[in-house]
């Protein structure tokens, strides 16, 4: 009896499991995948820090995207398809990004990820996206890994100027204009900081006397500032997110550290930092924005401090027609600019876009996209890196005053050249690009 029931159980197990062999093959491995696309809609999405230490500023970027896509949808969409943009919060926490990306790709079934934000965060999912053959367009981060090796990551494209070229341009400017300065680096402890350091060291290796790193999440930067102060630093290069710009300024007030500050464009928005700082004291610091006077940074997009720029006029129009609550800020401008590039990419992919097709289209036609950035993209089959240059500005009264013309370069030992060709591009009359399908 006992032997029967054991054998019986085994047979049962085998039979049942054999019986469930009824499934089909998953369809996302075929060439020309059209997941996320129907005849009338196209669904895209990304992860952003809507909460957490990186949320000040960055949480506004998706609202820029949405406003511009709504504008385009109101004009009939792209090739008759309306764009739907799904946003998920990862709180700038790479483990969450993994989870959230699973949801976007497996549950929401997006056609492509557009603008996924953050170096440490997106780094956690870039392999998954490439393995799953999901187009990973225009990552909101300047790390090199999105574009310097298209063989490893064929589906991923950067968008903004990468941190290495920013480091190079900053390093070159400091070397030319402040050759005797003792330079200290204030870096986020991940690829963002590392890539910036790489670029800066090309020109400033002998001027750098101290390097201080922080982890996003630990808001006590007193040890780092004290370290820089103790090393006698009189010019600080900061590759950090906006909250840490405010924190570093605040701590320096406390310990009486008064270097020249040079922040990456990632962390230097005067309105945002000023708003963060303005609250911090009663009486001692009345105007937060003025703490930033004399701070140097770089710029590759016209911002809200230049309301007469033709692109700004377009963004204002889009925002007032389709924007959510609040004013147009530089982060929303960033979002809209990215969205503009995506619409160009979608047009280049032709009337029947596929995942592989849009990737090929960006490689073929991306270099010639005319957009709000002051320098052209570098998209080719060999490089998926984004905007190729920027200019150095000094912030005074919340406005960036240009110190140099647009400087263009590439990673590695490519030289730095002046190139104003792309800075003259203006938007088309109806504000929607008109890119022909790439061959």
């Amino acid at each position: 009896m006992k032997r029967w029931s054991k054998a019986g159980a085994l047979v049962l197990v085998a039979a049942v499991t054999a019986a469930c062999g009824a499934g089909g093959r998953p369809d996302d491995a075929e060439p020309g995948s059209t997941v996320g696309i129907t005849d009338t809609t196209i669904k895209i999405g990304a992860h952003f820090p809507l909460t957490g230490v990186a949320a000040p500023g960055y949480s506004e970027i998706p609202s820029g995207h949405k406003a511009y896509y709504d504008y385009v949808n109101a004009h009939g969409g792209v090739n008759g398809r309306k764009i739907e943009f799904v946003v998920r919060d990862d709180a700038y926490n790479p483990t969450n990004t993994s989870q959230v990306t699973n949801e976007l790709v497996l549950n929401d079934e997006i056609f492509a990820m557009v603008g996924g934000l953050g170096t440490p965060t997106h780094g956690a999912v870039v392999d998954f996206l490439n393995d799953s053959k999901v187009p990973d367009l225009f990552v909101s981060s300047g790390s090199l890994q999105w574009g310097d090796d298209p063989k490893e990551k064929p589906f991923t494209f950067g968008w903004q100027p990468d941190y290495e070229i920013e480091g190079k341009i900053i390093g070159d400017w400091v070397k030319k204009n402040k050759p005797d300065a003792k330079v200290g680096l204030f870096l986020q402890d991940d690829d963002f900081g590392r890539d910036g350091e790489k670029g800066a060291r090309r020109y400033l290796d002998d001027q750098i006397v101290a390097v201080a790193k922080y982890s996003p999440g630990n808001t006590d930067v007193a040890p780092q500032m004290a370290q820089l102060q103790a090393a006698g630093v009189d010019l600080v290069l900061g590759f950090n997110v906006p909250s840490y710009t405010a924190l570093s300024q605040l701590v320096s007030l406390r310990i009486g550290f008064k270097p020249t500050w040079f922040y990456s464009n990632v962390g230097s928005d005067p309105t945002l930092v000023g708003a963060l700082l303005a609250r911090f004291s009663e009486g001692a610091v009345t105007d937060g924005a003025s703490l930033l006077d004399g701070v140097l940074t770089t710029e590759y997009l016209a911002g809200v401090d230049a309301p007469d720029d033709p692109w700004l006029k377009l963004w204002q129009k889009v925002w007032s027609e389709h924007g959510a609550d609040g004013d147009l800020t530089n982060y929303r401008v960033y979002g809209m600019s990215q969205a503009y590039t995506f619409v160009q990419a979608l047009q280049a992919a032709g009337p029947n876009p596929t995942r592989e097709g849009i990737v090929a289209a960006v490689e073929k036609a991306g270099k010639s996209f005319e957009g709000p950035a002051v320098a052209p993209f570098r998209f080719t089959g060999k490089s998926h890196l984004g905007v190729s240059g920027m200019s150095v500005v000094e912030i005074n009264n919340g406005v960036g005053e240009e110190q140099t013309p647009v400087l263009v370069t590439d990673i590695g030992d490519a030289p730095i050249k002046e190139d104003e060709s792309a800075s003259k591009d203006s938007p088309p009359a109806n504000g929607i690009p008109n890119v022909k399908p790439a061959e």
Partner: protein
Amino acid sequence: MARRQLLIALGALVVVVLVLENTSQFRNAQFAAMAYYAIAAGGLTVLTGLNGQLSLGHGALMAVGAYTTALMLQDKDAALPLVLILVIATVVTLVVGALVGVAAARLHGPYLAGATLALAVAIPGIPLYFSETLGGEQGLNVRTPPIPDWLADAVFFVTGQDLTPIRYLAYLGWLGVIVVFVLLANLSRSRVGRTWQAVRDDEVAAELAGINLGRARVLAFVVSAGCAGLAGGLMALSARLAAPSGFTLTLSLLLLSAVVLGGLGSLVGALVGAALLTFLPQVVTGFGEDAGLTDVQAAQLAPLIYGLVTVLVVLLAPAGLAGGLRKLIQWRRST
């Protein structure tokens, strides 16, 4: 006794295969998560329920398992077989658990809670300090190792479907659950388990009966640490990442509340708790968004519910959901 357990285990395997083969990739990923939560919760429920040691640091022990796994998978060409890697991760965490357990054996109640709390906060700082080898804030990426050909063929032969990486991990996880739970159930019912309960219930009497308190407590800690290590390794594989941000204080607290909700000391309760941890957030967030909250706000509803139910359980039904159910069944039977 053993035969019954074998049948239950086989039955569970059948259920696992049926469920995994017939649900979407997304659900498979969720089931994989439920598996590693169940393993961690199983170890914790035995430690806290049977042995009475309250640990708030099991998230940190999961981190040890996760990082060990991630480190061994960094060089994907030279990687050992996956099962061996997970075993090594478990063993490493066992050793760490022994060290912690020895220190913890002399503490009780709130002191033990506070010390393990400090552990939970301290361990994530280590990869930040040694950011060269341990990846810093960004963490270590974990590329899923390729599925062994013989396994892929065997699964296709039996089920007719391809084995995707996500499903592979889910199978691995649930196999782990079955193995670990059988082990834990045996331990609980054996002399060792009775010793643990004796230590929990009355220290003085236990020592008088000849039980070495320290050894019993350390053993319980070590066993639960091993479970946490295995869970951490599986988590690193599922999330494709081992980073400090994955092992916050919140993880340890959620694990504890999952175990309390399910019922301290009950393995079925651990499964229930793990299911809640995995599936409740999506369900509740959906309700919240329908009720008009923003998605960021709705995401807070799940922890709110855990916390509220934990408080209610402690106040009203200390034996948790599983215990309450058992009592209900017994009461029904007696009336």
